[in-house]
């Protein structure tokens, strides 16, 4: 088992809320790992185990958040 040192965010192409989140984090200098759920079944299944709506954020402390600042995320459940 590995320990997370930075947030992991599950995204898909074409998701406005995902783009807004990543733009903000990039502007703020936040380090993160992006995992594209639309590119592999393995990542899609992993994302679904944490939530229904991307962006899905897993923080190192175990918290999970879905969506971004009330924006319209994309339903993958």
């Amino acid at each position, binding site marked *: 088992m590995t320990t997370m040192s930075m947030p992991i965010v599950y995204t898909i192409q074409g998701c406005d809320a995902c783009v807004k989140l990543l733009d903000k984090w990039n502007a703020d200098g936040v380090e993160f790992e992006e995992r594209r759920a639309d590119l592999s079944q393995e990542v899609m299944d992993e994302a679904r185990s944490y939530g229904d709506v991307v962006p899905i954020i897993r923080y190192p402390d175990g918290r999970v958040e879905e969506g971004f600042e009330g924006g*319209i995320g*994309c339903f993958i459940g």
Partner: protein
Amino acid sequence: MAEKTSVVTPERFGQGFTYPDYLAQIKVNQDRFARYYETATEAVADDDASFFKAAVEKGCSRVLVLGEDWCPDVYRGMPVIGRIAEVSGMDMRVFPRDEHLDIMDEFLKNGEHRSIPTLVFYDADHNYLCHWIERPESVTKEMGEINAAVDAETAGKDEAEVRNARRDRVNARFPDWQKETVRDLRALLSGKLGV
């Protein structure tokens, strides 16, 4: 929509994926597309097949489908139109939404949302007939009712438990929602073509 200025020319329509070719290149949810094709074959009954064959004979010979493979509305709805095209002889061409946003933006839901699946029907001369977006209104209403019921029944429970309860309840309704989609499409084309 001004059909003469549409970005969907006959040539471009012909560049879309056939349904089998689309399925061959998707990256996720192949199993779900296959599962809901099986239920779609039951949703499109013999009487429905006769209706859509008549619709094709009356001129509705092409359907453009915008979708993305990660979307539940798509892997539930696209197999329905795939089956309809198969039994009726309608020429169906699939365009991944995010690679064809110029097409998508001609058919925004409520003039705002890039909702999928979106189906656009044309005659043999590529004249626009009508289009259909996302899911029947009755299904949207029922989804809201299910969400409210699950929230009430699972208050205070673990998020994963709530999520799984919602998924179980919603997914169990998929076959009936496919039948509702067939009814919705029949009503749309019937009104347009007088079939």
